[in-house]
């Protein structure tokens, strides 16, 4: 075999048994193969095989859902990296945050990336919700995806709020004291919900641990689940809907 020929190495890899066991379709040289690339891939199959050209225009969606999704990915990566140094305990939490900021290499960068990413995620999700509302994309057949989106908004705010306590500084402590006192005003169950949320009557070590578990496990897992449904439903409901066009009242794919 002559590997000097241009493209021969790529051809050799494509022809190998290992490659063929992972990727079953051929190179994207036919329409059929281009379609197979999308629906034979776990990560791409939630996406439509073909989209209308106008849906790719910036002003169609302002990419706000995509921005939210990318911010979420950044937050997952930076958050996991922060977890390697952070202990969710009263004597260590604030110390670890300072260690990340002043001692650990690139710690300040990661912490700030996580912080600004979180702000971006909340802002982009909110603008995305407005965009969907003003484009009337909450209407049938997308009404269920709007509901999923509302759940995602709540999860986003929950993640933002539980992360707020973790630095264990004055801002965090009083922010969470005030927030959990608002919970108290919920009818009938307010006191009980607050007690379960804090693991006690005051913001204490129990509250720090509970917020940590919610922030790092419970809410992210729920978020992954609902984001998967949300993105998959976009395809099932006929792709992203851009600006409202009266001629599409028939419910045809836009």
């Amino acid at each position, binding site marked *: 075999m002559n590997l000097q020929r241009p493209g021969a190495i790529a051809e050799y890899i494509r022809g190998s048994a290992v490659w063929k066991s992972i990727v079953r379709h051929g190179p994207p040289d036919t329409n059929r193969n281009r379609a197979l690339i999308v629906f034979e891939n776990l990560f791409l199959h939630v996406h439509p095989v073909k989209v209308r050209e106008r849906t790719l225009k910036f002003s169609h969606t302002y990419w706000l859902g995509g921005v939210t999704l990318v911010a979420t990915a950044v937050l997952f990566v930076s958050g996991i990296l922060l977890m390697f140094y952070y202990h969710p305990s009263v004597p260590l939490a604030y110390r670890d945050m300072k260690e990340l900021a002043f001692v650990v290499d690139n710690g300040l960068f990661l912490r700030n990336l996580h912080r600004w990413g979180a702000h971006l995620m909340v802002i982009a999700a909110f603008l995305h919700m407005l965009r969907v509302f003003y484009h009337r994309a909450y209407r049938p057949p997308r009404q269920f995806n709007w509901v999923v989106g509302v759940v995602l908004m709540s999860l986003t705010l929950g993640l933002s709020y539980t992360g707020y306590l973790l630095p264990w500084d004055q801002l965090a402590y*009083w922010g969470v*004291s*005030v927030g*959990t*006192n*608002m919970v108290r005003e919920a009818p009938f169950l307010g006191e009980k919900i607050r*007690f*379960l949320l804090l*693991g*006690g*009557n*005051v913001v*204490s*070590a*129990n509250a720090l641990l509970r917020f940590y578990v919610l922030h790092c496990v419970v809410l992210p897992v729920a978020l992954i689940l609902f984001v998967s449904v949300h993105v998959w439903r976009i395809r099932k409901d006929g792709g992203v809907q851009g600006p409202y066009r009266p001629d599409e009242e028939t419910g045809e794919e836009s």
Partner: protein
Amino acid sequence: MPDVIDPAALADENENEETSRRNFLGKIGVGACAAAMAGSVVLTLDYLNPKVLFEPASRFTAGSAGDYGEGTVRFHKEQKTFVIGGPAGIWALSAVCTHLGCITRHLSDEGVIACPCHGSRFDLEGNVIHGPAPRPLPWLEIQTDAAGNLMVDTSVVVPKGKVFRA
């Protein structure tokens, strides 16, 4: 003709019986799963409810009555309580703001209790003199222990005006 049995009808009846038995067992199965799920929800909620709390005790000693001459305001940080001496006697006020739970401070030069979070102000009897606090600061029970020291219980609220007289 009641004494003539139609075999087809009999087969149908058997089948119905079979189906209903299967339905019945199926329902028992679904019911058992639902009961187990409900039980696990109850168990989980119970598990999340802490049994022992390492929080400050609600009763604490606040010194002797002699420590609280007229105009004395002492803040007990751990229990978040003011113990105040006035002309008629001694009373204890919760220092937790009735708005959203921040800890208030006594501003001695202005003679008021103020909350740093949202600007609520109270007089020394706990009355709201400036919002957003919706309610006055609660008065807490004061008793004496065997040695004659003041014992304040932050978990017992008494009506406003019930001062302790030594």
